[in-house]
């Protein structure tokens, strides 16, 4: 399979007054054309920084320490202007809070048209017409009228739809969706998830779908990468990950969640809390919370050979359970 996006051993550095921290470490991910890769993990695990690395959207204190991101087979240089243009043409991003991505002093139509012109180089007139079509495509009612509205005049769900219209304008090959539905109500979330899946199918986009919601990622993603404390700890096809988690952390996340049709007396949480960036354990970051941890876990970082970064991966269960 050809590769749309490849991240190789990415380490991200943030320079803080107390010295540098490394919130993303040795992350490698691959997305094929038309494929959805789910990226799940708890807050602070490095999901969003991984997205921003792909988009090349770093603040002043943030930099790529090592590793490489290749788009359509060619590495991207974070400093090159040509590569920035390549990103802008080939990638679109949706963030959790649509208001951070929308310009409050421009109309929706203007913003979608701008995104379209940047990606396609078309004329203003053509872009304005296309913007109305795009607003229609993402399910905004009365798109012609709405295209003259400003972001604050529409609801959160409609704002997220407008963000999606901007992100897919000009049909980018890759869509990066960072918690696209977290800020929305569940009935609206269902609509947005359906919309994203439909657009992806129709436009053949690859998608990096970031969420903390394990249930949601099972619905959306083909493959899922689980991140913990800056590293990918498990990678598997979505169905397999849920049926047979192999990393103790993945299993812990799954048993922490109540099921709708399962009556258990007590949930099985993961003991303890996520280590802070300044006090990362020397070996496996999950070792202090892991019931299976042994001496080697405390000294050596397990690598993601195959599908699971663990010294004691859980046995693949047979269908008995």
């Amino acid at each position, binding site marked *: 399979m050809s590769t749309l996006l490849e991240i190789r051993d990415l380490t991200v550095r943030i320079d803080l007054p107390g010295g540098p921290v490394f919130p993303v470490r040795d992350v490698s991910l691959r997305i094929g054309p038309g494929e959805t890769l789910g990226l799940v993990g*708890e*807050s602070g695990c490095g999901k969003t920084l991984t997205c921003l690395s792909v988009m090349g959207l770093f603040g002043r204190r943030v930099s790529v320490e090592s590793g490489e991101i290749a788009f359509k087979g060619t590495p991207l240089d974070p400093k090159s202007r040509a590569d920035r243009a390549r990103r802008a043409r080939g990638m679109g991003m949706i963030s959790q809070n649509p208001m951070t991505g929308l310009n409050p002093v421009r109309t929706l139509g203007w913003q979608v048209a701008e995104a379209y012109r940047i990606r396609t180089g078309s004329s203003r007139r053509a872009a304005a017409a296309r913007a109305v079509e795009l607003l229609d495509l993402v399910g905004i009612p009365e798109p012609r009228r709405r295209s003259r509205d400003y972001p604050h005049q529409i*609801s959160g*769900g*409609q704002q997220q739809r407008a963000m999606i219209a901007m992100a897919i304008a000009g049909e980018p090959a890759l869509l990066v969706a960072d918690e696209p539905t977290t800020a929305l*109500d*569940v*009935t*609206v*979330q*269902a*609509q947005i998830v*359906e919309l994203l*899946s439909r657009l992806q199918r129709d436009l053949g986009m690859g998608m990096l779908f970031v969420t*903390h*919601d*394990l*249930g*949601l990622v*099972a*619905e959306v993603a083909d493959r899922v990468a689980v991140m913990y404390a800056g590293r990918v700890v498990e990678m598997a096809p979505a*169905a397999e990950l*849920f049926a047979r988690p192999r990393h103790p952390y993945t299993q*812990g*996340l799954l*048993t*922490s*969640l*109540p*099921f*709708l*049709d*399962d009556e*258990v007396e*007590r*949930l*099985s*949480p*993961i*003991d303890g*809390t*996520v280590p802070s960036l300044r006090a990362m354990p020397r070996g496996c970051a999950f070792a202090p*919370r892991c019931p299976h941890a042994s001496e080697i876990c405390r000294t050596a970082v397990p690598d993601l050979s195959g599908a699971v970064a663990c010294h004691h991966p859980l046995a693949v269960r047979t269908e008995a359970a």
Partner: protein
Amino acid sequence: MSAVLAEATEPDEPRPLLRVAGLARRFSLPRTSLFGPRPELTAVADVSFDLAAGETLAVVGESGCGKSTVGNLVLNLLSPSAGSIRFDGEDLASADDTRWRDRRRDLQLIFQDSRSALDPRLTVEAQVAEGLEIHKVATAADRKIMVAAMLEAVGLGGDLARRYPHELSGGQQQRAVIARALVLEPKLVVCDEPVAALDVSVQAQVVNLLRDLQRNLGLAYLFISHDLSLVRHVADRVAVMYLGRFVEVAECRDLFAAPAHPYARALIGAVPAARSRRGRLVRPLRLEGEPPSPMNPPSGCPLHPRCPFATDLCRTELPALRPRADGRSVACHHAEASQADGLEAQGGSDASQPLKVFP
């Protein structure tokens, strides 16, 4: 209304810990024109329910539906525009300040945002002791013992008790809030999204703690949440709220097996299939559009502009929350049709092909 009648006809029935009848709360908003009337927003309309000692009633709904307002009204943090709240047989809305101070011990609150609920200048120990001091519970020496025991029970014993809030993780802060609420041995605790701000792996710890404490102390919980799989796990009964009204009240198990109100069905159907072990029980219902603004609610049934079952009747007449033979109450003109339609797929849905659920 029916609850009040039931009390009159069956005097032997045990008195509920909390009885809420016809509760409403309206807010006046700033004038939009100089001489125009002040617009009003109805946050809660005609809400009635009973809550027994030791029971958990969950209130679920989307943001802005009025569920937190119900919690605040029960705690008398807001005063109702209409209706009554009887706690232990006593009407709290009319109680004077002194009486309130006494009763407040029995009614406690756990907020979503534990960081802002804690005093940053007090150690955990001191925060938990504060309530006991205010209510003059026991002697100073006994208070110390009670605080230590409570902190031990929520897993903040030893060194952690002498820390300040900023030195604790989010989960530990929420434990401190819980300890502070429960050290007074309340009868009713309003939990307003108690774990929504916590990471999944820590959520389960706090949920287990809340259940253990309920069992040991016989607490009643009014559990306000938007997380349905969590509600399924903790609640005895569930009230589904939409635009300020209860639209369905049912035993937890019944509701999740076969929701009757189209909105309840939409909420349950919106939970990803992977959150059920055997795939979906209920065929999801797609609602059109988004919740309308409570400032300008639709005529008739508040759900009708979004509901596929809506008829002319729904557009004109507000359905009452009627008790049904199966023990639940539903406010819908077409509940039977919606419920039957939702069950069509039983046994046939497949979690491995979840996207097909939206035809």
